[in-house]
């Protein structure tokens, strides 16, 4: 399945907002989805992403789904955030 991150907003900055996004994902989008299924996370349309927001969403998704593909990560804040999470938050994607 594919998750379009821009559906949570173009500017994704705070930890509480990330927590809320993950709760919504858990309740609706990934509920009942086979954890071995390929999960595509698409950043197309995201303008500002921070480690605080992403740590609450991307890091947690990566802990649940071993098969993740990241799409459209060219935005400078997306690239830098993923780099920070890989280095300091054990993100393994």
């Amino acid at each position: 399945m594919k998750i379009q991150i821009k559906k949570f907003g173009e500017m994704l900055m705070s930890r509480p907002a990330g927590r809320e996004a993950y709760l919504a994902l858990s309740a609706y989008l990934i509920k009942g989805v086979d954890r071995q299924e390929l999960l595509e996370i698409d950043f197309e349309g995201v303008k500002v992403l921070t480690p605080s927001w992403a740590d609450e969403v991307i890091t947690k998704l990566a802990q649940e789904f071993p098969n993740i593909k990241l799409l459209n990560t060219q935005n400078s804040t997306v690239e830098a955030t993923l780099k920070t999470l890989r280095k300091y938050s054990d993100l393994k994607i």
Partner: protein
Amino acid sequence: MVNANLKNLALEWCVSENPKIAPGDYYCASRDFFIAQADNLSADLKIGGKINDSDAYMILAMIGEIGNNSFDHNIGNWPDAPGVFFGWSIDNSGAQIILADRGQGVMATLKKIKPEISNHQEALKVAFFERISGRAPESRGNGLKFVREGAKATKIHLTFISGDAQAELNQDFQIGAADRNIRGCLAIIEIKKR
């Protein structure tokens, strides 16, 4: 580019013994208001093409991390006035953006998980460079590493003061004593027009 008045307003609020003196339009008492103001800054930064979109978004992400840190680490525990000072000044030569809070400060926050930290300069070094763990169930603590990398990438100058320590970030990182003691945090971002 440097708006001395804006800087003085932030400093006054940071060190005032009477925190009820709120700096008018620059005061964000809640996180929601801070986020809304960041949205306004997003539009202002791009007016006239002074700063390209990619750098503007990166600078906004850095500001998001610094401002949200103030709320994340002080919510329910503000010593007096809650919230942040958040102001900016943009002209033909570039922009200056200031964030400040009257929170616990970096050292008091980090001492909870790293009690061996003995002074503010050491606390800033840890905040900007070290991987911080042991905050379960919270996993906060990576924002300022991201800010350090962002300062390099966007070629801005960031002055970050907490306690009696002052860090200067651009392509390098330097740390020393601050002129004035700030209990919480004060961040000044200076961007030259490219």
